[in-house]
């Protein structure tokens, strides 16, 4: 499942030759993201290491993990959407096995994967940690 989505995302992005279009697509994804309930926008779900605020919520409905999130910056929100698109509805096992390398493959001038300020790395860490937690408890 996860692998399939990963491939699809890479293909989707390859359709946009310029970085403007890629960003436009990311922002579009962000806009389409289901709004996060206000109660979840708490310190508890805030992700550290982002210049903009990012909230990420995880629900475990055996055997799958579901992610919800938001951000106050548009691009970051798009990244949140991308991350959710990718990992939500995967099993902990699938997530643990994933190398999380898709982001360096979508060709955004290394931007997404390199700068820490967008918090992508922090988001991926949080997701991996959730997966590990529920994997152990299984």
């Amino acid at each position, binding site marked *: 499942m996860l692998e399939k989505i990963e491939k699809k995302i890479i293909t989707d992005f390859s359709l946009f030759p310029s970085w403007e279009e890629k960003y436009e697509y990311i922002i579009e994804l962000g806009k389409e993201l289901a709004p996060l309930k206000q109660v979840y926008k708490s310190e508890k779900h805030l992700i550290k290491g982002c*210049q903009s605020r990012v909230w990420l919520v995880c629900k475990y409905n055996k055997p799958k993990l579901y992610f919800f999130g938001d951000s106050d*910056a548009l691009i970051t929100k798009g990244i949140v959407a991308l991350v959710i698109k990718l990992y939500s509805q995967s099993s902990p096992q699938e997530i643990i096995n994933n190398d999380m390398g898709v982001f360096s493959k979508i060709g955004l001038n290394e931007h997404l994967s390199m700068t820490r300020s967008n918090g992508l790395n922090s988001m991926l860490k949080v997701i991996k940690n959730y997966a590990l937690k529920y994997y152990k408890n299984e």
Partner: protein
Amino acid sequence: MYTDNKNIIKQFPYLQSVKNKDIVYFDNAATTHKPNKVVDAICEFYKSNNTNIHRSTHVQGAAITQDYEDSRKCIAKFIGAKNNNEIIFTSGATESINLLANSYGRKNIQKGDVILISEIEHHSNMLPWTTLAKETGAEIQIIPLNEELMVDLSELKLILNNKVKIIAIHHISNVTGIMQNIKSIISIAHKFNIPVFVDGAQAPSHIKIDVNLLNCDFYCFSGHKLFGPTGVGVLFIKHKYFKQLTPYKTGGQMVVTASIKKPKWAEMPLQLEAGTPNIAGVLGLRAAIEFIKEYGINEIIKKEEELNSYMEMQLKNIPKLIQYGKYNKTAPIFAFNIKNIHHYDISTLLAQNNILVRSGHLCNQGLMNHLKIDGCVRASLAFYNNSNEIDKFISVLKKIISFLK
């Protein structure tokens, strides 16, 4: 991209490099580029003169020790210090402030005393003082500001009293480019016999510094923000405080008799320079200052005035742009937000267009709180920037705004 004035670009390898030809570097408040002179000084040291300084019996070591001390002299002159030994080499502005807070602060500030800082200091000029306050039991009080983000001098007078033991204030803001009225602050403080520390990290690349004229007690800056190397900075301590200091770091060179019970420390400034210093860094910093002298600080000021007014004019044309600290701007540092757009989105897309700025709280959460924002975009220019770059920046900014709407 760069159009040249006075052949200045030629002297900065970064600006000349083919790799960077499309880049507009507006992140000079974070760090400046280095002229060839600086890089050459570092290379020459390592390639043909490399040796450690102090206590050597060989001419080579003595010559570099002399160069090191000449750098001290050069810097003293550059900032108008009367004595060379009032110049202490550190690893940067942050260390300078920590050194002062520890070496002077711990010895002279006690429980119940007051340390005055402004609400809008860079973290490096805030945390060493709040830490000192916590350690000593002293209290931090906040210097009142007026609406233009300047110290309110009449309010200042009201809160000064003999419990205030030091005032720590920036010279030029790292966010807004605004220069404080340091001379007046100091003259008021001195009426109460209160010493003043000035955080000049953002100043000497933009204005002429004269610690003697300002009459300040302590002053600091970093090499890397002054066209010099990383890992080197300066702390100026007025001679009259020499007796009120304790060593900050201890180790080689700063001791005469290394006894366990009663060590005898070296005289100033060596007392505050433990261990092997950043020799290449110091020589590079001297080269940077020589570069500035040759180019002329007045030339720099003139050039930056032009950049300032051109940028101001251009920013006016951007709808929904909120600029922070419009008045009394001295350095071409511009902080702004666009209504309803996140600063992160702006700086990210500027970067995608090869325009390098910085965004976020800019290590100044105090100012962000004061402005009731969580961050902003900062475009910080240096004298080697030009109006073409401003044009590009403005046109890209407009494009981004419409893109993000």
